[in-house]
């Protein structure tokens, strides 16, 4: 359903490094970014430290009018080219964070910079680098699919003669070409999701933010969206993703932050986080029902059905020992799976800790 993006369609990491070099040597007031459509003039040049970051958030706070403190002075950095997961339970502050970054929510205090451009003082430059795929559908239901893309391109300064070929390309890539003249309200849920992705990419953003892009999407489409996002990330686009599917974060993202009750409770790389998992629980399906009592050395085991076992294995224990033990007792295992996604187990333990506090 999703075709591969061609390398010329997004900015490469190499180009991004060129931008950093540009700023290191230039003192003029004209800003020329590598992207074809984000050339703007500014008198403020970003610092080299910040230009290396796709996103930098410092001491960001937000208290809503009803008194709810959504963000409590969070700090967050996302490197260029990263595929970054922002996770958290409902109401944790994920959407508020994204809302502030994309100017849809006003902050109370703190600073947000996008590719070194301060959202308060260099608003247009900062915005020109951002693309957003929001959680809720938010296009004019009466407008046609292609018109939505060309209009959005125009908002970013791309005239129709440039926006139209770009829209055509994205419509093909996202499997929406046949629906180009259809009013957006007549699209299926999956097509609407893809249209929002196409719209977010129409101006070649260097930072793409997706707020639960696969919510309510069937497995096939979800997998093809993963492939699509991985492709554009491989080609240099920095991606920030919020999701409820922890498998999605584990498969796609290199770095992760977990937010809960308006605070970042964890911010590390995915590998380190998963390494912290000190035990895993597996479900084993047996070839035949168990008739005798089962004993395994140093392993916690529970019978949860006549021919189903639940086994807890510590990090230092080898799965080989488990299977050797079972073989010795004449038990044949036909299938095995994790009881819970590994990241899910960690996520729950981290969120539970903040509740305890």
């Amino acid at each position: 359903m999703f075709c591969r993006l061609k390398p010329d369609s997004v900015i490469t990491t190499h180009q991004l490094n060129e931008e950093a070099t540009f700023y290191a040597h230039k003192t003029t007031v004209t800003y020329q970014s590598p992207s074809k459509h984000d050339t703007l003039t500014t008198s403020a040049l970003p610092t080299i430290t910040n230009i290396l970051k796709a996103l930098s958030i410092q001491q960001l706070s937000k208290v809503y009018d009803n008194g709810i403190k959504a963000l409590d002075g969070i700090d967050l950095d996302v490197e260029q080219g990263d595929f970054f997961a922002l996770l958290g339970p409902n109401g944790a502050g994920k959407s508020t964070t994204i809302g502030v970054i994309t100017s849809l929510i006003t902050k109370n205090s703190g600073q947000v910079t996008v590719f070194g451009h301060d959202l308060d003082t260099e608003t247009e430059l900062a915005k020109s680098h951002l693309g957003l795929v929001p959680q809720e559908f938010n296009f004019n239901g009466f407008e046609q699919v292609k018109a939505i893309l060309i209009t959005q391109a125009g908002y970013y300064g791309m005239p129709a003669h440039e926006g139209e070929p770009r829209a055509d390309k994205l419509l093909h890539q996202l499997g929406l070409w046949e629906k180009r003249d259809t009013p957006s309200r007549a699209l299926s849920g999956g097509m609407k999701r893809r249209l929002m992705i196409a719209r977010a990419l129409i101006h070649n953003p260097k930072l793409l933010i997706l707020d639960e892009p696969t919510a309510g999407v069937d497995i096939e489409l979800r997998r093809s969206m993963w492939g699509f996002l991985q492709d554009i990330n491989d080609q240099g686009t920095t991606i920030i993703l919020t999701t409820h599917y922890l498998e999605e974060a584990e498969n796609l993202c290199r770095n992760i932050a977990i937010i809960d009750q308006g605070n970042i409770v964890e911010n590390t790389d995915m590998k380190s986080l998963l390494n912290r998992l000190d035990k895993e629980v597996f479900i084993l399906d047996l070839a035949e029902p168990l008739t005798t009592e089962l004993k395994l050395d140093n392993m916690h085991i529970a019978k949860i059905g006549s021919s189903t076992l639940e086994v807890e294995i510590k990090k230092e224990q080898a799965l080989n020992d488990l299977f050797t033990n079972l073989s010795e007792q004449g038990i044949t295992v036909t299938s095995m799976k994790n009881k819970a996604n590994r990241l899910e187990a960690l996520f729950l333990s981290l969120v539970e800790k903040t509740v305890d506090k």
Partner: protein
Amino acid sequence: MPTQRQHHWVALSTLLTREIRRFIRIWPQTLLPPAITMTLYFVIFGNLIGQRIGEMSGFAYIEYIAPGIIMMAVINNAYANVASSFFSAKFQNHIEELLIAPIPNHLILAGYVMGGVARGLLVGIIVTIVALFFTKLHVQHLFITLSMVILSAVLFSLGGFINAIYGKSFDQIAIIPTFILTPLTYLGGIFYSIDLLPEFWQQASLFNPILYMVNAFRYGILGVSDIPVGLAFGVIMLFIVGLASFALYLLNRGTGLRH
């Protein structure tokens, strides 16, 4: 290499094009009703009742009310276009397409106001064509006529924009036109000269901005006005500056748009 100014120009023209496309796409709701309503005004007030009224300020009654009816159509449609378009964008959340884009707020305001002016002028042309079936219109002062119709459309587009910013439901979008705009329009000297009113109501009418627009527009077409034309321009400009500043303040503050 496109400059910031070129980016802004493309963004503004995109927004204006979208606004024009919107009201043309739904022409049975936007362009047809004023043509029918104003035809009824001309038939009933102009032809049937007007013949019994005789002359007003030296003109046949239908000729006297024609400029006011055209102006009424222009300001109603300019207001309705911006109010409904901007509120719909809020209601369907596609206003977010604009809010996340690198477009300064004054251009967002300008784009919507220009859209309102475009519909107001198009409806004005349609109603003028309808009027020509019933009466003759010899424009006395072309510049005054055109500038007054454009400024009035700008003023009421700004009004519609502010209404849409505050509006939280379609009911609230309908309240202002029904309870404020329509009474002001009918009391704004469209159908009569304020000379016919008692002294108190003549003075009270001077607080109605629509009176200035209708009279200055009538002066442009017929050459007669109850109000000095210079004063009318001054009052309208004052309202435009005031409303534009307020609308921009609300946009910058994010009232009704950003949490």
